[in-house]
């Protein structure tokens, strides 16, 4: 067994004086897809934000053999962690293509950046059609694709995705998840996916964690959790 790509241990997180995460332990293996499930308000977004240094935390986080806890967000990102945030983080006044260029801002290899823009357009042809449009005029689904595309421009080793299916039509969700699967299979991008749609996420992931009011209550292979009726009924509601 190889060492995990991402390894968080005993993570506490705070909004001002309020504690919202309690001793969370979490791993993502290299090349794997892990999902973090839980009800609204359980602390899923907070967990992802803790991993990329966007709020006050205690505990240890290691990525690719380095300790990253307490580092600045931009430095963590530059190590190869792309975070697709809840709400998508679109640069609304910039064009679609500029949004992709912004995603590559930490890189210097100009030729490869242009090639990657085309690669993203290959995955998301709709973005190519609208590449000169202000990104704020895109539909919610298109902005979600743009957010994933912007993350890809970083050439990440690990992608953190916060509810990528939120607000998308079912067909679009299928399409997006197929692309995520392909990215993982063909390009070896590891993923940590936060989802409310547990069935969908368990289908894609190979490992799952379940979060309840800031504490991990369960973890295991995605297949086992999917097939355990008791867990499904009591925690996942389907």
């Amino acid at each position: 067994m190889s060492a995990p790509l991402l390894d968080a241990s005993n993570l506490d997180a705070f909004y001002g004086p309020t504690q919202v995460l309690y001793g969370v332990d979490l791993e993502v293996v290299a090349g794997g897809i892990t999902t973090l499930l839980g009800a609204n308000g359980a602390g899923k977004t907070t967990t992802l934000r803790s991993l990329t240094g966007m709020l006050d935390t205690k505990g240890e986080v290691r990525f690719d053999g380095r300790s990253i806890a307490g580092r600045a967000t931009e430095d963590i990102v530059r190590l190869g962690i792309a975070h697709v945030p809840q709400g998508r983080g679109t640069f609304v006044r910039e064009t679609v293509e500029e949004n992709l260029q912004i995603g590559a801002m930490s890189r210097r290899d100009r030729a490869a950046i242009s090639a990657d823009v085309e690669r993203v357009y290959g995955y998301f042809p709709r973005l190519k059609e609208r590449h000169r449009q202000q990104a704020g005029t895109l539909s919610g689904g298109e902005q979600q694709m743009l957010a994933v595309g912007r993350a890809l421009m970083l050439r990440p080793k690990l992608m953190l995705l916060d509810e990528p299916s939120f607000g998308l039509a079912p067909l679009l969700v299928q399409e997006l998840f197929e692309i995520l699967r392909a990215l993982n299979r063909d390009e070896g991008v590891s993923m940590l996916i936060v989802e409310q749609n547990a069935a969908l996420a368990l289908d894609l992931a190979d490992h799952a964690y379940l979060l309840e009011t800031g504490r991990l209550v369960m973890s295991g292979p995605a297949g086992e959790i999917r097939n355990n009726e008791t867990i499904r009924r009591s925690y996942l509601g389907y």
Partner: protein
Amino acid sequence: MELFLHQVLAGLATGGIYACMALAVVMIYQAIDSLNFAQGEMAMFSTFIAWQLLQWGLPYWAAFFLTIGISFVAGVVIERVVFKPVQNESVLSHVVIFIALFAIINSAAGFIWDFTIKSFPSPFGTRELFGQRLISAHDAGMIGITILMLVLLYLFFRYTRVGLAMRAAAANPESARLAGIRVGWMVALGWGMAAAVGAIAGMLIAPVVFLEPNMMLSILLYGFAGAVVGGLTSPLGAVIGGFSMGVIENLAGTFIPYVGRELKLTIALTLIVAVLTVKPSGLFGRTVETRV
């Protein structure tokens, strides 16, 4: 008619200076959501530096560009040393910091160079252009340089990677950090550029208003007026607002009886209030529709 045209051109010349100050104010406002009241004093101090360099015998253009460089570095340093430590504090503490900066720079200039009025040379001379009475050579030079500078800034922000990174950092700092952009340095760069733009404005207007520590007071007010009227969220709006202020100021002073020199500033302030009442985001202030 000739008088009218003359006043419009002269208005565009001073308007260019107001546009520079408006732009400098907007560049910082977009990054930190606060108005830099010390922008004018920073420009005044830059102009004194240029004057000192000229006194030491540097040729005009050498002093001009050296001053721009020094001002840029000073702007970056002021952000890193003075502003960065309080950037997450309330708007009120920003205001206090800016007022303190204003007072410190103003009295430092008075202390070093004293408060007597000094003349400042024009690189273009003061004779009339082409022997016409329409516009003086210095006014024409002012318009030329401000327009050149504005075009260069536009190209920088529109077409360079650093320009795009600065736009991203100002528009959505959190998302910019997630793209690996060093937002803090982008803000500092914005301060440097605003200080450099202010320095150019100060050096160009100094031959007209003369050099002394309070020279930028009313100019910054017109700059604010231009920025607010054009819209604090729109650099282009601020520039257009600045140019308009210059023209309106001149035409009102010439053609509306009783206005004269004394009431020109009142006109500008009235205009701010009027525009804000009708359109709070300014004439060019943008509100982008976002579909969800």
